[in-house]
């Protein structure tokens, strides 16, 4: 128990003090890794109910645009614009959820895959208001784009995701989601309102994905249909979650750190198509070690303990 405590203190200290020893390049890499970790955790939260979403990029992109518009049209400062981006996207996702959460399995998965595409098309064709194919520019960056404060911003968003995820694991949501994933009939006759539960979870996870997107928009100062709704934002978090281990908070975080840092090296050596690695990782993990790295470690420790 004490050992565990010390471990977390060290992690927390490292997370907070890392800007003291790192240069701007490392900081920007870490910022991206933290954001991807938040996306990966949020994706995992929904799959705990058995619903596979390919809609991460869609909600991420929606968050970038809503916060950019808040800044441009309402002169909102960065942080409130990010929060509004998250909240509005959460509400949009809940409204969409009332329709698409009637679906299960492949129907749900493919509809969420289509969502990103739909949002992108709508925004691309939105004329001056959405900036059309050229996108929009935010004149004033959040914290003036400083690497250290934006690092803490990304850390804060990861903490929101991790906090929500841990709450989901400790509260009644844990019972509800796990039961739904196991067998929906049993869940229903145990008194669980599946539809309502899924709408809430879908909304919250989409909101977190939008927070991540909104913070990206406010850090980099621009949004375009292609960059904001890039399929990378679906592909990478998925690969990260799988590699680290699904159905828990820390698997996706570990996966995000491993793959996020790996990706920086790959980008340098493979200019085109370095994302193939993520595809290969997804295929490999699903076929060979569906429990992920943390799952494997846990199994090993359990065996040693016995």
């Amino acid at each position, binding site marked *: 128990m004490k050992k565990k405590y010390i471990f977390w203190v060290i992690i927390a200290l490292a997370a907070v003090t890392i800007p003291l020893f790192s240069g701007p390049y490392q900081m920007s890499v870490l910022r991206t890794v933290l954001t991807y970790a938040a996306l990966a955790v949020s994706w995992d939260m929904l799959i705990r109910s058995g619903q596979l979403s390919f809609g991460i990029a869609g909600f991420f992109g929606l968050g970038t645009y809503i916060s950019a518009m808040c800044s441009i049209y309402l002169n909102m400062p960065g942080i409130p614009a990010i929060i509004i981006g998250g909240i509005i996207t959460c509400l949009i996702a809940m409204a969409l959820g009332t329709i698409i959460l009637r679906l299960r399995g492949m129907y749900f998965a493919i509809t969420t895959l289509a969502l990103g595409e739909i949002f992108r098309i709508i925004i691309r064709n939105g004329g001056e208001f959405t900036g059309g194919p050229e996108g929009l520019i935010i004149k004033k960056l959040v914290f003036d784009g400083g690497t250290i404060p934006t690092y803490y911003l990304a850390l804060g968003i990861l903490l929101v995701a991790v906090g929500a995820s841990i709450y989901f694991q400790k509260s009644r949501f844990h019972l509800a989601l796990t039961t739904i994933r196991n067998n929906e009939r049993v869940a229903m006759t145990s008194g669980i309102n599946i539809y309502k539960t899924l709408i809430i979870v879908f909304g919250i996870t989409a909101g977190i994905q939008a927070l991540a997107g909104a913070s990206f928009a406010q850090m980099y100062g621009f949004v375009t249909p292609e960059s904001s709704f890039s399929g990378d934002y679906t592909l990478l978090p998925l690969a990260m979650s799988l590699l680290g281990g699904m159905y828990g908070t820390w698997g996706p975080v570990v996966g995000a750190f491993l793959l996020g840092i790996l990706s920086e090296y790959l980008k340098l050596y493979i200019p085109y198509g370095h994302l193939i690695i993520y595809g290969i990782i*997804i295929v490999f993990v699903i076929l060979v070690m569906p429990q992920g790295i943390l799952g494997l470690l846990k199994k090993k420790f359990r065996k040693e303990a016995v």
Partner: protein
Amino acid sequence: MDSRKKALLAIIAAVAVVTVILLLWKPTVLIFGVQRAGLYAAVALPMALILGIVHIVNLAHGEMMILSAYITYAVARALGVDPFLVMIPTAAVMFIVGAILYRVTIKHAIEAPELNQLILTFGLAMVISQGINMVATSQPRKLSLDYVTASLTIGDISFGVYDFIFVALALVMLLGLTFFLKKTTMGKAALAVGVNPRGAAIVGINVHKTYMLVFAASAAMLGILGTFFLTKMSLFPTAGGAFTMKSFCLVAMAGIGNLPTILLAALALGVAEAFIGSFAGMGSWTHIVFFAMIIAVILGRSFRGKSL
């Protein structure tokens, strides 16, 4: 039975009304719509075959078509020949690619939960599209062939003739598939496996071999299709994703295992897209039509109390 007949009558009536209105108002919509429908149906048929028999949604479906288009493109360019001369070799290569993909990946996920299968084929889609990106870069590729631009003018409307080749292709594929499934021993065995794999195994059908064959045959069909696609459209690594989604939409609309209805669904999608696209400045909205359709189908089914 009665309600099904009524529904069929209603569909026929609706189609007739729409056709007449379009003929009078926007005849080109009908022509372009039918041409699009041909392409969509042709792409959706192999997906329906895999879904109906192997019971797997192949999210790498569109990507496999694009892969075969790139293969044809590379070979045709290198040898300086017409792409159609390369079509059959490409189909053969894709047959092998399909068999290998099945043997190495899909086979090991046949018993896995649906979620794992979906994630797996999503991963395959990424491997294929990013692999293409790695080898061929993201620069768009297009062949310029003079025979694809042939056009016909009737009265004051003028349209391309070559695109009807997709309609012919879809019809040939449907007839070929129907013949294969209904008349050949191998096809009947495949159908039996699709309906009841355990039962089929008991009577001595090799289930995995059948799955592999179906997967490889679908890949070969995509090989042929890729060549046709190449003659008309430009290629880029991620061009396949939209076709995966549209194919799935059509299969879902038609109902799994219902091959002929895919043509009808494709017709609805093609005409609706051509209709939206016929208004000035609306061209880029056409890709949203399938999404509206998928939502409509879903709602329709859930109101009828049928679980999808």
